[in-house]
């Protein structure tokens, strides 16, 4: 077989169409790249339509709805207490916080929020903060995985597993607890919980320091995330960002302090904010640093709750966690908005009730992940494609909550 000799000669190109390949006639156009919905770094089923110019991201258009499960319609056709298992399924990593928000709203509508025993409130805060640590562990672990570090992922899942087991022992399910009820709790804490939780805290404290050393102060991590996907504070406010995304941009806004719901006013804790220690204020590093620091604060809250539960609001034989659970949940006719600081930001529920039926006429969930995700085009524009991955991970979305 004769081998074909091919020799590239630029002038061949110009023989048939002399002017086509002249430098001044050449054109370039943007390429559209589809990222997801099955891409592992999009944290669920998110599809991103990325307009690229070479390696540069020109625009990002998120496409949602792959995980839509009609939460609002469900909530409109079920009595309030039966929706609690579905509220769990919105933000499945921080289910306890979602339950707390939902239940608080209904208690305020019924006007029984002052009658809830203090012990119940402390238990609620305790389990919610435990869940917050677990959720932040996933956020940081998967983020490190996204940008190429495997060890933090495994270590954090190992540590999270201890929290999950504790909550499983307490509530009867691993992630979807259905534990916080309107007017109380499903069960009281199991006997021996306090000791177990104390030993867990002792275990977690050095692990958190280790996490700081392993991830946050790691030079590779800093070089990868500092000055990447910077979110200025005015943009964050305009897009309605909340939670660690907003606090990473440097605003001390935490509903636990601002609204002071439940027993948070009685508890002493700080709100960490991003200060731009590694790069600019509001970059990926700041957001993750805020999450780690929040874990320390959560541990402080848990310790104080445990102390209260051990000393003032002890477990007694007579204590019934369902003492004020109403037989019939029928709030008066009203429009009501309730909000709470979930693991990812402000989780709000809007209720419209007619006072005649047990089901709400309209429920709207203000999901924090949804608003946080909307800022993604803003922070990814102008960066590299690889930085887009770093940007998605740093805003910590849960698609179950975005699509509801």
């Amino acid at each position, binding site marked *: 077989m004769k081998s074909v000799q091919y020799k590239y000669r630029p002038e061949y190109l110009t023989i048939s169409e002399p002017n086509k390949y002249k430098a001044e006639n050449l054109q370039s156009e943007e390429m559209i790249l589809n990222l997801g919905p099955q891409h592992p770094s999009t944290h669920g089923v998110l599809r991103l339509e990325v307009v690229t110019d070479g390696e540069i991201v020109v625009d990002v258009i998120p496409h949602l709805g792959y995980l839509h499960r009609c939460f609002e319609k469900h909530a409109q056709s*079920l009595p309030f207490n*039966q929706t609690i298992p579905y509220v769990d399924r919105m933000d499945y990593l921080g289910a306890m916080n979602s339950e707390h928000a939902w239940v608080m709203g209904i208690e305020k509508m019924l006007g029984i929020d002052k009658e809830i025993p203090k012990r119940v409130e402390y238990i609620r805060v305790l389990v919610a903060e435990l869940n917050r640590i677990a959720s932040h562990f996933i956020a940081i672990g998967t983020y490190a995985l996204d940008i190429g570090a495997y060890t933090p992922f495994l270590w954090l899942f190992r540590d999270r597993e201890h929290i999950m087991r504790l909550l499983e*022992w307490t509530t009867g*399910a691993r992630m979807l607890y259905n534990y916080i009820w309107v007017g109380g709790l499903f069960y009281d804490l199991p*006997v*021996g919980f306090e000791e177990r939780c104390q030993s867990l805290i002792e275990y977690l404290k050095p692990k958190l320091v280790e996490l700081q050393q392993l991830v*946050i102060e790691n030079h590779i991590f800093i070089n990868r995330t500092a000055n990447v996907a910077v979110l200025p504070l005015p943009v964050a406010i305009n897009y309605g960002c909340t939670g660690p995304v907003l606090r990473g941009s440097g605003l001390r806004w935490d509903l636990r302090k601002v609204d002071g719901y439940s027993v948070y006013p009685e508890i002493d804790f700080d709100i960490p904010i991003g200060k731009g220690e*590694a790069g600019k204020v509001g970059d990926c590093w700041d957001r993750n640093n805020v999450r780690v620091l929040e874990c320390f604060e959560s541990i402080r809250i848990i310790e104080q709750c445990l102390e209260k539960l051990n000393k003032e609001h002890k477990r007694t034989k007579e204590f019934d966690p369902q003492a004020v659970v109403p037989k019939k949940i029928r709030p008066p006719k009203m429009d009501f908005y309730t909000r709470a600081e979930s693991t990812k930001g402000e989780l709000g529920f809007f209720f419209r009730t007619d006072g005649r039926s047990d089901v709400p006429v309209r429920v709207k969930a203000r999901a924090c992940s949804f608003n946080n995700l909307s800022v993604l085009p803003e922070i990814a524009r102008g960066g590299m494609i690889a930085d887009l991955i770093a940007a998605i991970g740093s805003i910590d979305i849960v698609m179950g909550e975005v699509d509801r």
Partner: protein
Amino acid sequence: MQLTNRAKKTDKSELSLFERSYLPSLATGLGITIRHFFMKKPTIQYPEQKRYLGPVFRGHHILKRDEEGRERCTACGLCAVACPAEAISMVAQERKKGEEHLYREEKYAAVYEINMLRCIFCGLCEEACPKQAVYLRHDKFVPVFTEREDVIFGKDKLVEDPNNRYRRDAWTKEDAMKLWKND
């Protein structure tokens, strides 16, 4: 840059000849690896080894019998009303003469079905039942099914075996802590 004073300083002095052979670092590294062989593993060998899940874990449903082995369920339908996933369905029947040793109440469920694809294991049926008949077992998961026909669990799978009564153990603190320690 100095963020906290927790970061470890690395030694950047020049290596000696012995160090440059990398034998000490090799030995150190292998030592760490070998030490991990003998450490307690965070994982368990699942199907052979099982974890204690807690006294209130919500697993497989069970329809309890009373002390004399009679079925407790009276087919009142409260569990079906309380179920947010509409997973439970039943057909009620009057108890006939001579069946008193089988059913405790005058009415009983001739058919009691739970659709395990619909069920979300929330535990509200357990809470709603006035006769303490339906429970979610703490020691057993719902098995995997591969056929659509298998997902509806009837009374054959749900009613408690009279020879192998279901009990919830570990209600005392000592029991609970013992089981935790083994975990």
